[in-house]
């Protein structure tokens, strides 16, 4: 779905920056670990905000992610999200 490759560190940084903003946290993106639950005591990401977050990731990384990697799937942690975006970027 995209024509250029982006390394995992760049994806992770973009994802953490966006989940922090979406959760309205006053924290640096680097402070969020990849094993942090998306919908837990720190991050507050639900289904709809998750999809909005994906569209923001697309804008930030200038990529288009394929729907079939996401719809009907469950995600628990920041790492799950980074993994699937990495997979989408590579598709």
């Amino acid at each position, binding site marked *: 779905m995209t024509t250029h490759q982006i390394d995992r560190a760049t994806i992770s940084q973009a994802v953490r920056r966006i989940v922090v903003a979406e959760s309205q946290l006053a924290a640096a993106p680097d402070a969020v670990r990849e094993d942090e639950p998306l*919908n837990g005591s720190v991050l507050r990401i639900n289904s709809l905000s998750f999809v909005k977050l994906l569209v923001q990731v697309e804008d930030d990384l200038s990529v288009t992610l394929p729907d079939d990697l996401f719809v009907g799937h469950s995600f*628990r942690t920041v790492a799950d999200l980074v993994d699937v975006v990495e997979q989408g970027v590579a598709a």
Partner: protein
Amino acid sequence: MSTSAPQQWRSVLPYLSEPLPPDRTQQDAGTGDPAAVQVNLPLELLRQSVQAKEYWDIPEPVQEAYRRFRPTPLWRATAFEREVGARVPIWVKYEGGNISGSHKLNTALAQAYYYHRAGVRELVTGTGAGQWGTAMAAACALFGMRCTVFMVGGSLERKPYRGVLMRMLGARVHASPSGLTAIARSGASRGNSLSLAIGEAVEYAAATPDAAFCIGSGETYSILHQSVIGTEAIGQLADRGAEVDAVVGCVGAGSNFGGIALPFLAEAASTGADAPLLVAAESSSTPKLTRGVYAYDRTDATGAAPMEAMYTIGSDYGIPDSHSAGLRYHGAAKLVSALRHAGQVQATAVDQVAALEAGRLFTTSELTLPAPESGHALAAAARLAADGADGLRAERGVLVCASGHGYLDLGAYQQLMEGGLADQAPDPQALLRAVSGLDRVERQEALR
């Protein structure tokens, strides 16, 4: 030059004076794993809801389906003009000529396409009058998907053939309240019947593998898909050398109104011209745009979906029964609401008897039978073209969307002809109570 079916949808988002107020999201419910986030909305539909991009290519399979019934007819309703004493031409855009009998198929096809592409194999939805359920059933049939519909029980009783058609198209149809869901079994829902049907669909979809809930009218992407109506109308009016300064549609949540009206707003904004009056015709028994408040409210009875900024009479308000089930919804779409709040959309309320009388006049004069919902738009268009109403008056011409046919509403027309139809004005105190706990988008907005 003759207008053909559009190849692109046209969004008004680039021309909003300010961004839409963000939704207030709730905690997820019904997935069985509260820590997991489940994705149910195709990204493309969300992109279409948030990105300020004016033109969106219509996927070829959706275009192919559109070509079976689009472009829809537009004509000058000269006989209706005479009946209502119009001073200016009334142009009618008719959306009732497809299998669903209404404009709803325009977005049902698009949504089914995107969900199918995303791997979803069953769509679940709630429907009031049954037009949306029928559209969804047809779209699912086209794309080889299963379809489950929760239809407001009273409406299904009055219109059993809606159920027959949906089942014929392969859908499973449940009268709501169904007993299949906790929200219905608990009797805890305080909302109106359509919001309960939607709530049942939300809960059922969350518990069903490979299924997703999809909503009919109010979402911004639905209104985008409906832009084919107004885009075609702009071309068809130009083909005829006609000009209008008022565009009218009825409003349940706002998709047919948005579909016919907002391309005119985009066209005016892009060319620097004055926009026509954009007039939303609502039921006087569900007066969210004329007597409601601009506040955050629920979109369904479960409260699981995000709270949206909308003109609302309160999701707990007990809307009286009527023959216009498609208008019996407590809130207007957030896009239509924002434009109303910005003064770019006007609104007028129409009584049920006046709506059906306009529908009867239209039937006998134009030989086209409109749905009672469309009768509200026709009544408002007649007022604008004649003496004006609510300070609204057309000077050059009126375009009105007849959003659906009324072949399954003949019981309502029979009641009209027998003199057995009455209006039910909302109780001001009940309206006040229903909105009293809502968080206003702007505090100075108050019940008028």
